[in-house]
């Protein structure tokens, strides 16, 4: 596949504070990249940079092999970003949707706009004429999305497209994204906290943490405070009295990453095992990922949630189910420091 974006040594600062630090990132054409990470981890900032709305403080961004920003206008019309707080222009829904087409001097606005509204599940007859303020939160969000879809963009950047949106519409948005990729060869980057939804959409997932790409895929993040134990181990106390053990954190407030595939699940308290961490918890969620090949199991350890991925076969053998008491096992060294 062709490389579309190439980021090298990108750093971005607000008021001197480093909020994004990506030594290298390549996004290929037709990819669907998910961006996850806690609030303030830099997802929206990265999307703004990919949309050429903000120039990174440092580093270079190549788009289609060309460096962006060094000279000339950036290729803004190739990429469109659905902003996190979906902002509508002070005009009717219809005029909002056709705005981008109109300034591109395109034809058959009505047809295209109605199609886009349908794609996001808003019956055009009912919504097209409404003024911008006569919409519910989720409706407004979907109008904003329709205004992007209607452009058939080369790159579709979505910032929390399903926040405020109902279940049925989330499915429609998923389908719209997949259709864009298939029919228009659109490349999609989507930031979201809706992991269930992302599972069904994304081909790859980047986990951002404090502006850095902490991991590919959905990893567990375990943050401090860490307190030293006598044998070189450090412990993060859990609300229920148990503790997660780790080796030499760089600081007391450091955050560690724990790959879901490093976690073993057992349905009975294991006997002698080499893993230092043997914690008891309850299964809260079980989700099938979009490949249909792995099941994500969320286990609550007295409030803190850990995610483990196992095969459907293993699920069957263990015969686990939500609500069941299980034990999770992982090595103290499996925690990698960020």
């Amino acid at each position: 596949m062709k490389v579309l974006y190439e980021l090298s040594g990108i750093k971005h600062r607000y008021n001197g504070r480093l909020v994004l630090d990506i030594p290298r990132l390549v996004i290929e054409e037709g990819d669907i990249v998910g961006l996850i990470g806690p609030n303030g981890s830099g997802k929206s900032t990265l999307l703004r940079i990919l949309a050429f709305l903000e120039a990174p403080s440092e580093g270079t961004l190549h788009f289609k092999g060309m460096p962006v920003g060094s000279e000339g206008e950036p290729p803004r019309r190739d990429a469109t970003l659905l902003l996190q707080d979906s902002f509508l222009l002070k005009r009717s829904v219809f005029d909002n949707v056709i705005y981008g087409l109109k300034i591109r001097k395109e034809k058959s606005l009505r047809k295209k706009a109605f199609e886009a509204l349908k794609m996001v599940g808003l019956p055009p007859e009912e919504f097209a004429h409404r003024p911008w303020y006569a919409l519910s939160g989720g409706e407004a969000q979907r109008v904003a999305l329709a205004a992007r879809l209607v452009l058939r963009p080369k790159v579709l950047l979505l910032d929390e497209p399903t926040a405020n949106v109902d279940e049925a519409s989330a499915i429609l948005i998923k389908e719209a994204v997949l259709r864009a990729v298939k029919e228009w060869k659109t490349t999609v980057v989507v930031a979201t906290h809706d992991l269930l939804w992302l599972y069904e959409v994304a081909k790859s997932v980047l986990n951002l943490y404090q502006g850095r790409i902490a991991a590919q895929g959905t990893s567990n993040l375990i943050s401090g405070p860490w307190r030293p134990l006598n044998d070189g181990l450090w412990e993060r106390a859990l609300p229920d009295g148990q503790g997660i053990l780790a080796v030499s954190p760089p600081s007391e407030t450091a955050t560690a990453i724990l790959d879901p595939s490093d976690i073993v699940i057992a349905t009975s308290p294991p006997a002698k095992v080499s893993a230092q961490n043997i914690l008891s918890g309850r299964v809260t969620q079980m989700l099938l990922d979009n490949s249909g090949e792995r099941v994500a199991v969320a286990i609550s350890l007295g409030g803190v949630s850990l995610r483990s991925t196992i095969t459907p076969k293993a699920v069957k053998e263990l015969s686990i189910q939500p609500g069941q008491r299980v034990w999770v096992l992982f090595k103290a060294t499996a925690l990698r420091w960020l």
Partner: protein
Amino acid sequence: MDYILEGLINGIVLLVSGDEETYSAISTTLKVSTMSIIASLIIGIPIGFVLGYFDFPGKRTLRTISDTLLAIPTVVVGLLVYAFISRRGPLGSLGLLFTLPGIAVGQTILALPIVVSLTAGAVEGLDRQLKLTLLTLGARGRQLAISSLWEGRYAVLLAAATAYGRVISEVGASMMLGGNIKWYTRTMTTAISLETAKGEFDMGIALGLVLMLLAFAVNAALSAFKKRAAQ
């Protein structure tokens, strides 16, 4: 006191009776104020947009200068323009002095800071998401400006109304540059000044009333437009 009431009655009489002098002044006023407001909007809105939209060094100083020029007295504008368009001035050959375009030059200069400052303020007051939204939908250059101004249309309209108020009510520049020549460059305001100087206060009030009715008509039209634009 009495002259106010007399003036109000006279004002209506002037209008109804179709008083020639009054209608000449009305027509002069409308002509010259239309020229001035159009010129000041055409020049001022783009400058205001740039000052409100972009960040560049010196922007704050330019804004302060524009705000300062809000306080320029009409007579001073009159003096400055007079220096240029008088027969002995560098632009004397254009023959602008004591003509309506001559007045319009002065009024445009007078209205410009209002248009610039208020437009800049309107643009600055726009939601910061708007800029990103317009950019990401593909707007650029002039489209960006026009769409931003359209989003702030009420504030821009208000800027225009304020500038219009300044233009139609000013007297110093009209006097100095137009010469208040009866039948030619006598506007409503220069006529009012004259009546006042003559001590005919009731006529001053009468013409003032006529001017206010004129301004009311213009503003009612603007307000109707604004209501339509609200959708």
